[in-house]
């Protein structure tokens, strides 16, 4: 009887230890991707987050100017030279022979030094330190040939970013803004073309806060996601995407975790000026443009200037 009891005790102990070991290995494996715990969205219990009807109170601080848009305490990007945002492109699908690669690479390479991006310097962090007028584009975009098929759900986009990081094609960069740019034969089935042209979000990968965005190819729905059929670079899809990329970049930098800069309607800076282009000029092919970056002209929506009572502007000198 004593022997049986000892045997039972030993078996029980081994079982417990085995369960503990299993638990730890699963937890470690499952820690690769995490949602960002700092989101202001409240859970609905339905698998969706919703921007709260009772948003965080804005921070009243004389060193933080707030003109028609308000600061809610969260982090922003790029207030020091060490945290200047790094834009990464993931060309998803088939981009072979598409001039979009040159058009949008040129755009990302040069946007940080534009007077357009300078609008972002009117936004600050919680200490009143303004965002720096700079964006890096550290490496050429990488290509992903349909690793997740040609019909993507919203959840797949973060997986595409995770795949690029885990395969070491792109670095794990807390200052990164990862853009998933889809070719015209790829659909994002959660509302691209019917509700939105792009979006930005954040997640956690390997315990690092990762900011990312989706921008779909406007060629799929020019009437929804491009301002004009004749475009400055003779590629209305790519030219349409340029404005959306600018939109998502502005908002990611000023509201990366969805708890920094937005107004009382929950609109972030670029939302307040969506599809407004201000003063434009005419390109040789008859299309409109309002920005020149390197050798290319672009038509890019205005952004909200957080100064002088607030307004949509094309640039800030």
């Amino acid at each position, binding site marked *: 009887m004593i022997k049986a009891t000892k045997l039972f005790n030993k078996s029980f102990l081994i079982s417990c230890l085995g369960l503990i070991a299993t638990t730890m290995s699963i937890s470690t494996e499952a820690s690769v991707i995490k949602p960002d715990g700092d989101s202001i969205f409240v859970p609905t219990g339905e698998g969706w987050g919703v921007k709260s009807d009772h948003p965080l109170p804005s921070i009243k601080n004389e060193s933080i100017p707030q003109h028609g848009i308000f600061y809610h305490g969260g982090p922003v990007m790029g207030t020091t030279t060490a945290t200047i945002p790094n834009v990464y492109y993931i060309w998803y699908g088939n981009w072979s022979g598409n001039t979009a690669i040159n058009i949008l690479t040129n755009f990302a390479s040069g946007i940080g030094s534009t007077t357009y991006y300078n609008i972002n310097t009117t936004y600050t962090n919680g200490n009143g330190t303004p965002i720096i007028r700079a964006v890096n584009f550290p490496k050429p975009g990488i290509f992903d040939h349909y690793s997740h098929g040609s019909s993507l759900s919203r959840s797949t986009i973060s997986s595409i970013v995770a795949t690029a990081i885990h395969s070491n094609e792109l670095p794990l960069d807390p200052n990164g803004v990862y853009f998933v740019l889809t070719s015209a034969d790829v659909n994002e089935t959660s509302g691209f073309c019917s509700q939105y042209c792009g*979006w930005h*979000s954040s997640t956690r990968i390997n315990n690092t806060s990762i900011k990312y965005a989706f921008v779909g190819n406007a060629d799929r729905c020019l009437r929804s996601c491009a301002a004009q059929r004749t475009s400055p670079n003779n590629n209305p899809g790519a030219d349409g995407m340029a404005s959306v990329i600018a939109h998502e970049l502005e908002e990611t930098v000023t509201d990366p975790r969805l708890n920094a800069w937005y107004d009382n309607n929950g609109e972030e800076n670029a939302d307040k000026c969506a599809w407004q282009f201000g003063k434009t000029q005419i390109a040789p092919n008859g299309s409109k443009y309002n920005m020149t970056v390197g050798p290319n002209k672009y038509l890019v929506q205005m952004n909200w200037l957080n100064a002088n009572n607030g307004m949509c502007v094309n640039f800030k000198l």
Partner: protein
Amino acid sequence: MNRIKKLLCLGLCVYLFNSIHTGIAENIPNPKIIIPTVTLLVKKYGDLEKSLQEAILQADVKKINTYLSTDFEERKGVDPNSPIPRETWIQTIKNGSKINRIMQQIAVRDLGNILIVSYLSVMPNKNDENIFIVDAWKIEGEKSELMVRYSSIVPHRHPNQSHIKV
């Protein structure tokens, strides 16, 4: 091993086992938390629908007439077999309530010269029922006319309600 140690070990195992499920749930990314850039059509037709709603609130029949096609009708989910014809619809507006509902979750499906605009019409009091509206607009040149409206009541806290504010 005495009983207390066994219970402690068992308790620890149960706690850790529960943490597996919690850990996995927390580690699944929630990519539905997004801030979208609305499409140009969502912006244009969202504004148009809001203008129509304002005209309804003000019972501005003259303005309402400019939005509706001559054969406009509304069919409601409670009685789809009984369309509400244009004149009856306008009369109802004159006599109806003037509660300013909020438009949310606008989507526009582009079918060429027909646009299908859908949205959730939300009452200010969250305990009231919402209405899901589907409008078919016909485009002729610069002009858009509302041809038909389909509407149905959405029970409060419907499980499939989406929550992107557009």
